[in-house]
């Protein structure tokens, strides 16, 4: 039960973060160059991503569960640690925070300076940028959906959580007609990094033959331990950065 809730939460938030980034690209191109070719690119990328989930999900069920958990856990661990590492460096001020407003302005300027097509013609620039943006952001979501869904035997739940996140982000994006700058993207990445890494530890351990104390409940202990370590590191790095900064920069 608790692992299903965590599975839903992790997939939902990871998908929401990636959807926010994809939405920024799509909005910037659509606003500047028109919607027909842009939305065709979005649709084409969605079809490719859906096909990957449909093909890989059942295929992964053929792999023995311990092998699958070890490989998936190891991949999630490597992938999740990268998110967490960046989130800690951003939260402590050693890396700039991700700014959707700035990303939107960059994409909008690039779309505006690219060569135009005549009215009524298909715009391959818009199609390609939207397709590439949605596909690249979506591949990480697809990876999470397929791995979580297959390892837990809940592909439908994982896909549903991802779909719910994408629908919610799209609806809010359409409502505000701009990039979702107020979404606490950096905080979400911190939380998702902790969750992905914790599931990675749990599954890789199970696949390697570890018997976790408390069985499935151990996942909550791992999440708590990793969250505590990450917060402690963030606070320590932040204090150190402030202490080392010149007096003028601190004021």
């Amino acid at each position, binding site marked *: 039960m608790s692992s299903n809730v965590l599975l839903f939460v992790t997939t939902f938030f990871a998908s929401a973060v990636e959807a926010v980034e994809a939405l920024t690209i799509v909005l910037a191109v659509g606003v500047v160059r028109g919607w027909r070719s842009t939305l065709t690119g979005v649709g084409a990328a969605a079809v490719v991503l859906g096909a990957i989930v449909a093909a890989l999900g059942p295929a992964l069920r053929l792999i023995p569960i311990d092998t699958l958990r070890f490989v998936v856990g190891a991949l999630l*661990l490597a992938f999740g640690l*990268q998110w*967490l590492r960046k989130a800690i*460096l951003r939260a402590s001020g*050693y890396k700039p925070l991700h700014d959707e407003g700035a990303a939107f302005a960059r994409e909008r300027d690039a779309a505006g300076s690219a060569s135009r097509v005549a009215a009524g013609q298909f715009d391959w620039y818009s199609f390609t940028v939207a397709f590439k943006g949605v596909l690249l952001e979506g591949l990480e979501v697809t990876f999470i959906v397929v791995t979580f869904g297959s390892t837990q035997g809940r592909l439908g739940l994982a896909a549903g959580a991802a779909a719910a996140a994408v629908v919610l982000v799209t609806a809010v994006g359409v409502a505000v007609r701009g990039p979702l700058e107020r979404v606490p993207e950096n905080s979400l990445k911190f939380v998702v990094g902790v969750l992905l890494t914790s599931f990675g530890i749990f599954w*890789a351990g199970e696949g390697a033959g570890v018997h976790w104390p408390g069985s499935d409940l151990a996942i909550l202990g791992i999440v708590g331990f*990793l969250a505590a370590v990450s917060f402690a590191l963030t606070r320590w790095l932040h204090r150190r950065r402030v202490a080392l900064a010149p007096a003028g920069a601190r004021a």
Partner: protein
Amino acid sequence: MRYIRSFVLFWWNFIVGDDWRVAAGLAVALGLTWATHAWWLLPLAVALLLAESVVRESRSSG
């Protein structure tokens, strides 16, 4: 050739990312866990690798 290079680069970025030492440390920790079945080894290794990586990055950038 360009597609193969992009494909390899995608997986390299996906698995190894910015810090190859973390990926190498994880590989060692996973191997030791496989050999010993010790439940505490992987969480402890992840915490130490994470701490070492962010502290090193903070020293080089700050």
